[in-house]
């Protein structure tokens, strides 16, 4: 069963910043408080980006790239389990670029 996580409705319309110390709606807070629990409790997760007024690359990189770099998840496993939904395809592409760029360099 696919679990849906809507950033605008369940987190903030104005997510921004990288770390918790940056501000109230940071990428780190989103990843640790919503994204990781949702990933661990579901077979498949759809993250909806629509409805947000803007992100900033630090938020997106920390939230999604951080799944690999900080939380130690495998990028390939994320490609299999996670779906990013956005009317603007550029955001979906950016999320996957951040995930792939966060892979450990061999």
């Amino acid at each position, binding site marked *: 069963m696919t679990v849906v996580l809507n950033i605008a409705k369940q987190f903030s319309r*104005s997510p921004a*910043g*990288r770390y918790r110390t*940056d*501000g109230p*709606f940071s990428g780190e807070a989103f990843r640790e408080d919503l994204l990781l629990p949702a990933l661990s409790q579901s077979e498949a997760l759809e993250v909806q980006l629509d409805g947000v*007024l*803007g*992100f900033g690359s630090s938020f997106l*990189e920390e939230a999604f790239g951080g799944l690999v770099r900080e939380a130690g998840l495998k990028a390939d496993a994320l490609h299999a389990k996670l779906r990013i939904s956005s009317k603007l395809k550029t955001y979906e592409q950016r999320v996957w670029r951040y995930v792939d760029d966060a892979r450990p360099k061999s």
Partner: protein
Amino acid sequence: MRARAKAGATRRFSRSRKERSTSLQSATRSIQVPAHLRYYADRHQREKFGGFLEQVEKSLALGRKVVLNFCDTKRLYPCGVLVFMGIVDDWIQRFPSRLSANYPSDDLVEQMLQHVGGLQKLGLSPRKNISHDDVTRWHYFTGMNVDATPIEPFMEQVRMVVGEAAQMGLADCVNEAMTNVRHHAYDNSGGGWWWIFATISDKRVFVAMHDRGSSIPATLLAKPDIWDYLTGRVWRQGRADGKLISAAAERRTSTKLPYRGKGLPEMLQFTKLSENGELAIYSRHGFFRFSGREKIESVGRLTKPITGTLIVWMLNLSGTMP
């Protein structure tokens, strides 16, 4: 006898110095605010503005009370208002109860200063009905740390005019600029205050953002390998700060982590996508400017340095996609 006379003279001299010092501290000085409060684009007015700020700073530091005299102030420009509001907040914090002002004689100037809360900060009660379009169309925000919630009303308005894609591209850049302020400008000590002034008119967006942190050149110079980037010629010509700002905008990061330092490059890239977009970054002694209309990037030196950074951004978002 002579020794007593000398001691008396010293006491008299001491009293007189003390009296002088007390009278200096209690003296109130009225300082004329320039006719045009402008920072961007006009060097002459920028220097006048800088001179005014120096004069106030000096008087306050000497212990005087200062009354800002707005009688001759005829025009406020957004970048000037932003720098002014930043330094007023700073003065009020450093010199409590020493700064005040009189009401401006120009109606528009008073409306604008009331709109941004400047008069109230200087101890004057608001007395105008803010009605002029040249005032109401401006959104003023100030905040600490990375929190884009206060700018939501402006972003909603932008979205209605230019559509979701262009608005989100703009918001991404503004959010990232706030993140830069938090991570780099204040060195994580004491938060990261920022001031933003923004408006949209006929798909043309103006955003100015100011912080009073340690400046882009200072942040970059803290990293040893940036020295390789600067040449002796650049130092001699006094253009080092401008070159450093240009380096930051062209993705030479201060953190050296591959996933960091994207704020200014993204802003520059987004400006280049916009028809006739302009981006100017003033920081410490230097500036960097990109003009889409003139198709140039330039760097230069400021005669009077700015504390922190001022980013002035003008975009035509009619056809811009992030």
